[in-house]
């Protein structure tokens, strides 16, 4: 693969996992965002977006409770998308390729958090001499340099050499396996949704899940349409409960 593109991928992965800006890396590190950028680069915006969104859905439910990363959507995306665009891989197979990297990325994050222990001990020293500038560097500058090294280098390497390896493998993939990846592509998003149900699904509001489900299943409403109805229903319930609690609706 082109060295420039490999560098771009390394850079995108760095940006998307740098954690600069709380929640910002949910956007800059989203497989959809990667898909858009790389789709433009490869001249197939639509396919880029579709692969990105398909990967995104698998990880849509992820929450970093206590700072722990359960899986790394950014690494999954930044490896699979360019290779798929380059080799003309099916979307489903690309997703199959993405998943193992989603796991590998966790280790990178663990290295990062281990190394961060060093900076906090440094920061304590600077606190004693009230050097707030140095504290700033400990909090932002130094960890960012570390994460750059941890992220840019491996992704640069893999994307530079990965496509050829993958193309070779793909020529030998039997149709049955490709069908299997097709199932995976359809099945894995269930994971993302199940995780969210774990977090927000108390029993007495579970019926709303099914109403949403059947609204699409039986009435063919689009997701945006469902969102519109969902907002209205949630607003009614909120206003009602506020009225009952005698709170001001503000």
């Amino acid at each position: 693969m082109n060295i420039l593109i490999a560098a771009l991928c390394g850079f995108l992965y760095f940006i998307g996992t740098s954690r600069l800006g709380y929640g910002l890396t949910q956007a800059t590190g989203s497989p959809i965002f990667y898909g858009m950028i790389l789709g433009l680069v490869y001249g197939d915006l639509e396919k880029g977006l579709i692969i990105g969104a398909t990967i995104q859905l698998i990880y849509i439910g992820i929450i970093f409770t206590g700072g722990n990363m359960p899986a790394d959507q950014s690494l999954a995306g930044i490896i699979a998308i360019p290779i798929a665009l380059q080799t003309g891989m099916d979307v489903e197979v690309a997703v199959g390729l993405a998943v193992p990297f989603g796991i590998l990325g966790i280790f990178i994050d663990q290295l990062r958090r281990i190394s961060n222990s060093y900076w906090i001990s440094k920061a304590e020293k600077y606190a004693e001499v009230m050097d707030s500038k140095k504290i700033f560097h400990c909090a932002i500058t130094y960890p960012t340099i570390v994460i750059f090294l941890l992220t840019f280098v491996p992704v640069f390497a893999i994307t530079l050499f990965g496509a050829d390896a993958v193309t070779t493998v793909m020529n030998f993939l039997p149709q049955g396996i490709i069908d299997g990846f097709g199932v995976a592509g359809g099945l894995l998003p269930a994971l993302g949704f199940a995780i969210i149900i774990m977090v927000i699904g108390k029993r007495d509001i579970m019926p709303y899940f099914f109403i949403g489900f059947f609204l699409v299943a039986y009435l063919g409403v689009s997701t945006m349409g469902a969102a519109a109805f969902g907002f209205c229903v949630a607003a009614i319930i909120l206003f009602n409960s506020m009225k009952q609690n005698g709170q001001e609706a503000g």
Partner: protein
Amino acid sequence: MSLEEVKEQRVLTDKDLKKTYARWYLSVEVSNSYERLQALAFCNALSESLKKIYKDDEEGYKEALMRHLQFYNSEGTFGAVIHGVVLSMEEEKAKSKDESISEEVITGFKTGLMGPIAGIGDTLIWGTLKPIILALASSLALSGLFIGGLVPFLFPLAVILIGYGMLKSGYLLGKESVVKLMKSGLINNLINSASILGLFMMGALSSTYVKISTPLKFSFENSEPIVIQDILDQILVGILPIAAVFGIYFYFKLRGQYYNRLIMWLIVISLVTGFFGILQGS
């Protein structure tokens, strides 16, 4: 005492608060370590404001810096209310100088509230707002609209606006009002409605994006083949996707959230069922 009056008595200006929030927003997770999590980010966020608060009191400033390097972890958006309140407490401490507000009170407040607020924020911001925005983004992207790649940025935007609002009201309203708000039903109502919206969307999304069906058919002589998927659709449209979502859900419930182990299992199951034509991905 009106809010305007409160504001006038305060040391920090809106600009100071904005800077504090910017420092926080930028660094929340950057320095996150297993040992103290967001401690360094917390201290870094407050450092300049503390300098202004403890103007001539070097010792006080130093102690404050050290104090806020202690273990801290909460959800970054809603958690910013803690920063606000802490600043107002530090200010009071700096002013009164006696022990009316001791170090323990401040630290106690921080550690007491960071847990509950993390729960609220993780549910509302990360468990509801984030997946909804990403779901909208996905659905636009899957239609090939490039705006889908930009929609995720609505999430950090919302985080910035809500977080700064939190910090500012924490600073102006102080400790009591935050505790009061936590006790009022409002937050529970909010969580409840947000969860309802979230679940509703997850239902719609499951129905749209979990795409598995069975290609199984049974053929008998002299009659049309029995298409299993047709029978399933007669019974309940989407029965397989529902089974998938709740299969995973109960796996997690019963076996614990071993995310990556499960993901591997799912791929194995997919390959096997796909290979033998039991399931298909659409």
